[in-house]
């Protein structure tokens, strides 16, 4: 696990050493009137941003000692190895440093983006579970019927089409003004959010998140529904189900009293991963489309603007979380189902 993490960091650090267009160039470009990396997408402008210039733009105008000053400020005057070791040492102590462009620590920056990510993650996960599990059970019970075939088809199509296309369709239909102007186009809350009453605030929030949540949920059905269906199918064929039926239990009791517990094991074992996904999930394009400011966008913006502390800080933290979650998933697996073990067998 630690070598993996180290490997990821080394590769990415090395990558950034050899590419043009570092943060200094970005600052210089901004000083000369370059701008927002999202101009091309959300602003409605049609010009795309040129993201990599091979020379210091400043080389054409700004004095050399100014650039040297900047380099010192960012720590680029030190050799790469030293910078890398300092960085890793800081990360080990969970000190993620400050963003280059906003005087705010990376940790606070991530916290700032959390509301959007939690909103999207929490609601779409809730909806997905509330629909997928009953649907999966129903499909297992009616395996092979036209209902089963058609829902499978619909789910898989929903899965195959990227979420942002659904988002576009929803925007055009419900927020674009051409058809029904039911939902707002951008943001998490209205401009006058502070003045609203408690109920008004809640309503305003849900009003804003309906479309983005819907768009990010559609593709989430497939995995869970089919997982539920399969584990139920496996269980239904087993002896104890026949016994339960033979005892004369109602089909409902059999399904929810007996099969459900066993059938849900595999779904439950996904909970740790799910929980983290709720907090740290981010979908760049969906966030961009609905002008939400979440983690997906943070990562992208940081990458384009070469905000290295943010890039490496989030990369380190999320890789670490990902690896821990992997282990946790295996552990819950063993915990809830003692039949599973990971011992090597000859």
């Amino acid at each position, binding site marked *: 696990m630690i070598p993996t993490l180290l490997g990821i960091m080394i590769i990415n650090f090395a990558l950034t050493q050899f*590419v043009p267009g570092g943060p200094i160039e970005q600052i210089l470009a901004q000083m000369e009137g370059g701008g927002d990396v999202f101009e091309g997408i959300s602003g*409605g402008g049609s010009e795309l941003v040129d993201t990599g210039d091979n020379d210091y733009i400043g080389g054409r105008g700004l004095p050399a000692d100014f650039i040297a000053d900047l380099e010192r400020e960012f720590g680029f005057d030190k050799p790469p190895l030293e910078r890398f070791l300092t960085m890793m040492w800081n990360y080990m102590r969970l000190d993620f440093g400050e963003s280059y462009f906003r005087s705010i620590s990376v940790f606070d920056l991530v916290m700032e983006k959390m509301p959007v990510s939690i909103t999207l993650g929490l609601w779409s996960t809730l909806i997905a579970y509330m629909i997928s599990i009953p649907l999966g059970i129903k499909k297992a019970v009616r395996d092979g019927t036209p209902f089963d075939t058609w829902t499978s088809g619909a789910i898989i199509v929903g899965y195959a089409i990227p979420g942002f*296309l659904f988002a576009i369709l929803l925007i*055009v239909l419900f927020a674009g003004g051409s058809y029904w102007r039911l939902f707002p186009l951008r943001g998490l809350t209205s401009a006058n959010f502070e003045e609203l009453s408690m109920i008004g605030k809640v309503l305003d929030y849900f009003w804003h998140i309906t479309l983005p949540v819907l768009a990010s949920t559609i593709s989430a059905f497939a995995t869970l529904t089919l997982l539920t269906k399969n584990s139920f199918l496996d269980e239904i064929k087993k002896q104890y189900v026949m016994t339960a039926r033979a005892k004369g239990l109602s089909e409902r009791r059999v399904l929810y009293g007996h099969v459900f517990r066993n059938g849900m094991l595999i779904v439950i074992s996904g909970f740790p991963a799910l929980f983290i996904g709720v907090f740290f999930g981010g979908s760049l394009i969906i966030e961009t489309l609905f002008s939400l400011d979440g983690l997906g966008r943070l990562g*992208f913006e940081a990458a384009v603007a070469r905000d290295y502390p943010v890039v490496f800080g989030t990369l380190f933290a999320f890789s670490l979380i990902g690896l821990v979650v992997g282990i946790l998933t295996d552990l819950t697996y063993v915990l809830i189902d003692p039949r599973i073990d990971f011992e090597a067998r000859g």
Partner: protein
Amino acid sequence: MAKRPFLSPLNQRRVRNFKRNRRALWSLIIFSVLFGLSLMAEFIANDKPIAVSYRGELYMPIFNFYSEQDFGGDFPTEAGYGEVEVDCLIVTGGLQDCFDAPDELIAAVDAGETLEGDFQKGWMLWPVIPYSYNTIVDVGGVAPSPPSAENVLGTDDTKRDVLARVIYGFRLSVTFALTVTVAASIIGIMAGAVQGYFGGWTDLIFQRFIEIWTGMPSLYVIIIVFAILGRSYWLLVFLTVLFGWPALVGVVRAEFLRARNLEYVRAAKALGVRDRTIMFRHMLPNAMVATVTMLPFLVTGAIGGLASLDFLGFGLPSSAPSLGEMTLQAKQNLQAPWLGFTAFFTFAIMLSLLVFIFEGVRDAFDPRKTFVADGNVTVDDAAFAAAETKAPNQ
């Protein structure tokens, strides 16, 4: 001597199984027609005529370059076939009056009159859609213009015909996805085979390597590489393959790890068969089912990935007929809903057909299905769920 059949009995059964799956079969038929049409895009949507008859001679502007001078005009540049003057020159056989009153002359020729002077009637055979993907359409009004008789799906915000762009974009997406899938499959299968077959340290080190590799932020790398090398189709194919191949390694590796202790492999080893032969001749056919399971996701993942990149502005060069770029335009021009609808339904139809086809292929390969007597093939959800957990996330 009996004629040896083209396909082995097993493959024949697979074909039969595929045909029994009506959804997959119909998807394949519809998709083949659409893809076949889009392969002939130049003959369907182009701003040059397919054939021109000028003074009794036949010209093929789609394949060859003809200057305006070839048709009796003034310029040595390529003839602008859409211009009314050139149109008139071709129809009348190069009458110089065309520069003064082209419309009247064309009308006269259409009415069947024979004009005086050096007249020789000619004709032009146009494609169904007289625009290519990058033709600027000459219609009035504000830029994304709504669907009309000339532009069935309207135009985009630089006045290019949407239908023409859809046809070319469809071809581009599908060829991109198929190229990427084939390349990523080959690399992935080889890597997974080596890893699973040798096991031990090879496996361990490779496994770490893949973890690191998949930990790389691919979008970031793509942005950087494009910034250095410039954008091109093949570079994007290369980069997508670069980040796409680990998707297959997992399943292939698992199959090989399982199979390497089986009797037939040990027997082959004892007989002194080379490693390479054992891997690709004996074991690979058994691992094929697991591999085929992943195919639908590789294909749709590649198309979705290309669309997202184009949407973000980091995909193909901006001149390419990209469907992702159309999606971006739809977002920027909400007053033009035809862009959004076209983009959505093009993707929806393309991806659904591909998924259904590859599902059919997968079911046909599944040994459990192959030996079912009544051949009642249903969608194999188990395989989906198994593959899904490892599918590439775009």
